């Protein structure tokens, strides 16, 4: 369970998030939609403790992480998987080393574990359809491939929470679809709570249980996928065009 309660955040004097409230239950995916600079990535960075909220509470399984000490935060991060916007692969390591990074750095080093780790890495790469890239360097991959490797790098340690920052940007439709299927499988079979940031509406519908519409750091609307489906068909288009959405109903913010 992930929860934001009235979270405010600003970079210096520039407010980025204002009074953001939402929650994601187990086995649920929340899709965050919003224009460029509306604060989507900021929400994910707050959850990882990379930045600290100015006010409000962020709860993970009922525990307020804004009160966490450094060591507790480090432990929490091991339960979270993050796919960064551009993948953020380590470019001095091979694809295989990237995917195995968590295992190698947290106790599975040395010859004893070599085979074990390699098997697991292959399995993960297969899952994202990139088995052949094992020995390649990240700069030999396309943007879409990098994001899939980044997904594998996070999934390998079976996190309880997955945060995807635009993982499907730059993928062809078929790969998009298989990545979305993967997101859904992970959610279902591993009981993961996910937050999925995207600009692609097809993908959004494919994975979403809940939607959060964000504009300039404010929650414009949030509700279930079902509720959004009942709105007029052009709601999302008008949302992205920045129109005032009167009478949106649901839980529209004031």
């Amino acid at each position, binding site marked *: 369970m992930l929860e934001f309660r009235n979270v405010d955040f600003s970079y210096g004097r520039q407010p980025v998030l204002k009074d953001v409230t939402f929650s994601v239950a187990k086995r649920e995916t929340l899709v965050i939609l919003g224009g460029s600079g509306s604060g989507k990535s900021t929400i994910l*960075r707050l959850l*990882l403790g*990379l930045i600290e909220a100015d006010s409000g509470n962020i709860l993970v399984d009922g525990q307020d992480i804004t009160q966490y000490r450094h060591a507790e935060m*480090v*432990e929490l*991060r*091991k339960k*979270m998987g*993050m796919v*960064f*916007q*551009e993948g*953020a*692969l*380590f*470019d001095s390591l091979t694809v295989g080393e990237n995917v195995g*990074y*968590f295992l190698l*750095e*947290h106790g599975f080093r040395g010859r004893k574990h070599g085979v074990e780790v390699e098997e697991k890495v292959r399995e993960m790469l297969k899952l994202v359809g990139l088995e052949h890239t094992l020995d390649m360097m990240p700069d030999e991959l396309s943007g879409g491939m990098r994001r899939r490797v980044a997904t594998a*790098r996070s999934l390998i340690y079976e996190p309880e929470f997955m945060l995807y920052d635009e993982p499907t940007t730059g993928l062809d439709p078929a790969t998009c679809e298989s990545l979305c299927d993967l997101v859904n499988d992970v959610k279902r079979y591993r009981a993961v709570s996910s937050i999925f940031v995207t600009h692609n509406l097809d993908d959004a519908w494919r994975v979403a249980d809940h939607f959060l519409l964000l504009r300039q750091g404010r929650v414009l609307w949030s509700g279930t996928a079902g509720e959004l489906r009942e709105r007029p068909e052009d709601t999302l288009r008008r949302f992205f065009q920045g129109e005032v959405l009167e009478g949106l109903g649901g839980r529209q913010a004031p």
Partner: protein
Amino acid sequence: MNGFLKKARQVVLGLGDFATFSFRSTALGITHPLRLSEVVENAYTLGIQSLPVILFTGFFAGLSNVLFLQGELEQYGAKITLGRVIGVTAVRELGPLVVALMLTGRVGAAIAAELGSMKIGNQVDAITALGQDPERKLATPRVWALTLISPVLTVFCVLANLVGGWVVATVDSGMYWYQAQMALYWRHVSSGLFKPFVFGWLIATVACYFGLRTENGVRGVGNAVSRAVVTCCILIFVSNALMGLIFIALYGL
């Protein structure tokens, strides 16, 4: 005036931030012990691979020093002491400084650029997200490796200085090398070996600091590199003078 105060405030805050960073990243090597491979790999790529340029520049630094020194010494009828003069200069000043400046240019700049681009590519955040401390992972091994390897490089540089000087020296070779050995007094050697530890540590901590604090995209990386290099040069010459004073206070002239 207001702008000046603001700037001064920034500098003071920055110094405090740097002091905390440099001591923390060093101490992390003890509280979260380094693996031998981390130090050796970095010592090799940062240190040993710098040896050729250090030998090359060290050779010419020694050579040009002798070119004018032997003329000066001759005027005082002290040309016979050439080996000793160049030896002391190389051990105490020239060797450590040539190494420090070459490491700043080759290694300090590279570290700042590498960590800077990792920072703007979210790789530093990815390390944090994967449950590690980026300072421990990225800065600590480089700091220890460079601190430990730069005295070794300095020994080789001093030899290159002496060889460079010998090539153009117009005194008897035997006398040159005999005199050069006279530089090996503890008061010279201790100074010559202590300084490189400090220089190596300064270069690595400064470069890691500016690299990991990089902001504003690709332009920020360029900024980080030039700040790191300028700061290293300033700190090297200032600390060199300070250490010179300390060693003179300890052992006399």
